[in-house]
């Protein structure tokens, strides 16, 4: 055994204050050196990327802004060198409201305002959770009914074109545009999430019949493309209904979307439930909570928190997939834009239309994704 003398070292001990790191990792110069120019390859890739970005941005800017035509009323005002935004401007209301009577646009606006009034308290942190849940359930259960009634109107009153009764009947065949896209997405998401949760719980249930039924439903709906389900809802479903009973086309599309989407949510939620440690179930059991209480207060809230990003991701997919309803004859925003570009007064403005639609979809999907990011960060601190 080696015997060293540590006495001098020990007696020299004194507590050291904290010092700052000599490398300032937050400085721009340091960041650039570390991330952009750390080696020859890195430098090369940085330069190539910058070149590509510059070319793409310049081209886009040139077409969408610099050479674009902004004023005028007909296509003759556009010189075809750049984008012709007059087309979008002239058809804008059409893109948003579809073929809805112009004098009744306020009904749709009212539905949007109602949504805003309800969603604000749900997202505000300083409002009590109980109240937020109340507004949330209003949004899920009551709002769609009120909204549908407002947009639809009273069935017995027919609309005349020049001076329509404020509550006159606008059949769903007149609906379209962005409004249609939002209705399909909103109802698809809001109705499917609760069904998806029930399906997930069903699939994890101890009761064999419920479990089997859930598995069959989920696997069938997930194994088939949405477009097929829409076809089935539109063409096959009426065959099973008694003659004379006719389902509205929009309702059929919604049923198809809900089938499809709830199966996806079910698998997402099941993933979350499986991530909950066994100890959480045991602690709840040992405290005497029954299955419903345990699920509602203990396991489900934790599971949903984990799967927020996946739920939002699945919802974003749905919002984009709603464009598929065009195949059963419903006009979502994309379909309306395509149709408008075939208008003889505005032939050949497809590019502008598609850029506009892409922008609209991007705005909605990106806001959803930001909200999910915000939720993730908000709940992140409570993890172990």
């Amino acid at each position, binding site marked *: 055994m080696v015997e060293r003398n540590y006495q001098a070292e020990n007696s020299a001990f004194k507590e050291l204050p904290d010092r700052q790191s000599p490398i300032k990792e937050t400085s721009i110069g340091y960041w650039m050196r570390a991330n952009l120019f750390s080696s020859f390859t890195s430098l090369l890739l940085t330069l190539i990327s910058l070149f590509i970005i510059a070319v793409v941005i310049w081209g886009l800017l040139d077409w969408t802004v610099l050479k674009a035509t902004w004023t005028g009323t007909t296509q003759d005002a556009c010189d075809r060198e750049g984008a012709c935004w007059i087309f979008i401007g002239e058809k804008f209301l059409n893109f948003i409201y579809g073929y809805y009577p112009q004098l009744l646009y306020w009904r749709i606006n009212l539905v949007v305002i109602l949504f805003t009034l309800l969603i604000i308290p749900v997202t505000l942190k300083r409002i009590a959770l109980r109240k937020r849940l109340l507004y949330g359930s209003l949004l899920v259960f009551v709002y769609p009914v009120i909204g549908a009634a407002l947009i639809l109107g009273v069935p017995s009153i027919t609309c005349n074109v020049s001076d329509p009764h404020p509550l006159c009947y606008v059949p769903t065949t007149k609906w379209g545009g962005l409004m249609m896209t939002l209705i399909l997405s909103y109802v698809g998401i809001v109705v499917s999430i609760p069904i998806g949760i029930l399906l997930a719980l069903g699939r994890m249930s101890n009761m064999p019949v419920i479990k089997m039924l859930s598995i069959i439903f989920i696997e069938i709906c997930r194994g088939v493309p949405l477009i097929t389900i829409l076809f089935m809802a539109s063409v096959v479903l009426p065959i099973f209904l008694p003659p004379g009973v006719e389902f509205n086309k929009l309702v059929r599309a919604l049923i198809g979307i809900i089938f499809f989407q709830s199966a996806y949510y079910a698998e997402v939620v099941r993933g979350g439930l499986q991530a909950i440690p066994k*100890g959480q179930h045991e602690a709840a059991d040992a405290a005497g909570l029954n299955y419903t209480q345990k699920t509602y207060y203990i396991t489900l809230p934790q599971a949903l928190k984990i799967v927020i990003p996946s739920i939002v991701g699945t919802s974003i997919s749905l919002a984009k997939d709603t464009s598929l309803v065009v195949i059963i004859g419903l006009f979502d925003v994309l379909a309306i834009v395509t149709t408008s570009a075939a208008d003889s007064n505005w032939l050949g403005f497809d590019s502008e239309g598609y850029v506009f639609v892409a922008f609209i979809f991007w705005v909605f999907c990106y806001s959803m994704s930001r909200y999910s990011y915000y939720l993730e960060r908000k709940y992140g601190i409570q993890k172990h």
Partner: protein
Amino acid sequence: MNKSNANKTKSGGAGELIVEISNLNKWFGSFHVLKDINLVVGKGERIVICGPSGSGKSTLIRCINKLEEYQEGLIKVDNIPVDDNVKNIAAIRSGKVGMVFQHFNLFPHLKVLDNLTIAQKLVLHRDQNEAKEVAMNYLTRVRIADQANKFPGQLSGGQQQRVAIARSLCMNPQVMLFDEPTSALDPEMISEVLDVMVELAEGGMTMVCVTHEMGFARKVADCICFMDKGQIVEKNTAKKFFEEAQNERTRLFLSQIISH
């Protein structure tokens, strides 16, 4: 049994039994984990169960509140049979038997206070004020009242385990089960949890503890059970257990855990 008899008379009902386990057998598939277990726990009695890992000690106490099923024999808690009847199980879990786990199992999405009140409100139907009062009372007893509005993730292991003990006590259990309550803790936090458990024992709580803390066992146990390979090898008073264990395997186990 003589010492525990004295305790029973002290705490009221003479010989009143809280837990009765008779001829208990349990299998995990083909693996026979518990073999012919017989054990009674009287009111106010403190029982420590020890033994090597895999001996079935955790499984045994988890049978008492039916976190585990058993295939043969009978367990009764306060004369209610622990069987397939859902009502019996609900009765046993809501206020008869409290449990503290190795990994605390606090609800991470709820604040400490809500962890303590949720079962009181849902199971015992106490209103918010009463539940909160009870909760704060027990949080004070485990010296952690100042953390009531934090989330479990913000607490140290020792603090979390004390919260877990308080959570169980809020339900006014007649017997507390401890499943290796200090095994997941950093060494410097073990004593704060054991102190709380000793105080609980001194207050007359009936306890069944699975633990390797022999100092704790010596201090509070009326009876120490040594389990090995699914059987209770030896039951003895604390003094006799450490000084004149009757069974060879018990002596070997003691020499292994006390030697260093």
